[in-house]
């Protein structure tokens, strides 16, 4: 059995999200792209805890950067637990979601994402990703 905690595109956790997309302008003039994704699992009766200190350490979502060549920096992304929190979020900072995420629809953690890239050469940039800390899936 593999860990079932995934990012989803809908609150009903029906469509796992394989990639977050955004379009930006080369001169940096495009408006920020705001999205909300859900981190959860549709199975029932399970819970997810940070494997580093289960039930104690917070589950953290960070912005990973593969850092190869000229890329879009992690500071182009802000994370927040609410829509209103995006404006005040520190660019590139992690987001702590609490010590446990329960499985099931309605228990998923909302992760608000704002993508706002500065001027950069045209291209498709895949160097960034949202990464949740390693979690342990247990019976709730």
């Amino acid at each position: 059995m593999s860990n079932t905690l995934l990012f989803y595109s809908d609150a009903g956790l029906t469509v796992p999200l394989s990639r977050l997309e955004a379009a930006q302008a080369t001169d940096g003039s495009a408006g920020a792209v705001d999205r909300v994704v859900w981190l959860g699992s549709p199975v029932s009766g399970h819970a997810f805890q940070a494997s580093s200190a289960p039930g104690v350490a917070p589950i953290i979502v960070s912005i990973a950067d593969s850092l190869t060549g000229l890329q879009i920096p992690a500071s182009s992304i802000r994370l927040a637990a609410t829509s209103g929190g995006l404006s005040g979020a520190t660019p590139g900072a992690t987001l702590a979601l609490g010590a446990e995420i329960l499985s099931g629809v309605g228990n998923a953690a909302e992760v608000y994402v704002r993508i706002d890239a500065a001027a950069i050469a045209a291209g498709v940039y895949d160097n960034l990703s949202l990464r949740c800390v390693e979690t342990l899936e247990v019976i709730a």
Partner: protein
Amino acid sequence: MIEIAGGALADSGGIPAGVGVATLPVRIDVGPTGTATLPVRISVVSTEVLSGAETATDGGTVAAVWGILVEVGGVDVTASVIGEVTVEAEESAARVADFSLHQPPGTVFVPASWSGRPVRIYLNDMSAGVPASQMLIFSGVVDLPQVEPRGGQIRLRCTDNRQGAISALEKAAVASLLAGSRYSPAVFAAGATALQHANDRLSTLASALDLAPDGALRVTPWAAKTPADLSFTDDQVLDESVSVDVAERGSLINSIKVDFGYRFPRIKAEGYLVSYNPLALNHTSFAYWVRAGNYLLQRAAVEAAIGAAGGSIIEITWINLPTKAVVIPGAGGVPAGAWLPNPPVDAQYCLGFSAVVSFDYAQKVEETHQITVYNPVSVATVGVVSSSMSGALEGVYEDTVAVEQNILLYREGVTAIPPKNIAPVEIGLTNSVNGTLTADSDRAAANAAMETLIAIASTTIHASHRQHAVKAAVPANPALDIDKTVAIDAQGVTARGKVRRVVHRLDPSSGSAISEFDLAVCSIAGIGISHADDAIAAPAGTSAGTTNALMPPVVTWNGLAGQDQVITIEFPGVEEAERARGAVTIVSEYRAAIPEDLLEVEL
């Protein structure tokens, strides 16, 4: 204490305290570990491509070189695409994509391996020989795979899962998403799903709710923006692709009659002041009244008379008998005797009284609101094209007969528990208060229901007037979407409106790449004509309070010598209009504005 075999105790002596084994269960949760990751793709393109001013499929003076990228389940299947790829988006509907994939002979089709797989479709600029200016035009999942045995291909119908995305939302999230919308459980079904809830709210809001190509929920007002997001001229618009569909007059609903009934109870009290002084009425004094052999008025008889008439004594003041001896004058001024007070007995009698009396009852009030929502300019231009709708709400309250009994018992002092509602007594008037209703049936709920109906009517009028359509086609443009306002000046048509529908048709084999679009144009009197608009607020209902001046009661007492001592108090009867169901018709009007979009056609 040391435990030893056999449970005996070995200690320094004394009485054994008991035997036991301390245990501590240890639970160790063992489960799979994993790291959820979500790759982020940021496509950086020129401002012109991002805005739609330029597109890979329109090379201007040189041939355009474009390509598509189709991913199914994260795998690039572009090389397998056969024929045309279409992506269709329409206001407040799911975005769908259709395409076919070549499958090698012998491939075994298993439905479960296709349904629900993520799908992405991009348009690329290939003019430099490598993909550039990548623009996402669809993201979603396979909804319906279709195959023919030994056909060598699989046809995929894909959806952006709009229905699923909205259905999964909490109703509070729907309300937050559709800010400015109206809702009333008296108008809409309280048990509706989140999707139906969204549709209900959308019926009160001149906006569309759909998903952007990247899958984000998006609300777009119907009103066209100024300036337009995209402008097309003969340079971009494909030959002979422009057409205009003018809405027929009968569909231009410009007046909607809303009938709304609201029934609720009103608690009433008629207040009377009953004053009676027989000595004053007979212009005599106590001594001569007694000398004449007349009777003294019994307090109990007074109270019984008021009760017999159906009234409740709120307060009463008695004119007491003298507390000192009174000389009874005889003939010629010679005292004939004396009246001596007898306090224990005298307290049962009086020389008169003044009482405040109430009659309490409940009335059912039925307000019929006749609300007309209309657009005056449209009515003046094409005449009245009307429609109608209705609603009703009944205030939830106790049984009115029980309410009346409770008030009576409380007024009579039989119970100390106050009724839920009781009208303060106003002497000489009929006074009333509204019954305290449940939160979903009180005045605020009725107002919310009426405002919701007015909003629906206003939105319906707006919707009917944006049925004019301008249709055209341009080289495929990923920026052209249903959240955009487009201005067009081509082939004799000058118009501006919000995109209602767009279809991207991309056929790599033929090189054809076009975007067909429909503009919703809202027009009735032309650009520059302003429309008056009234803020949506429920019309005022009837008010509780004093309504009716009362005639005074009449007291009759047979208290003279030789009479039967019967006291009768007659109150005016409760007027039928005060007690029977109060039907009130309230008429109001609201003007619903519509925007005027540009639409000119040169013939």
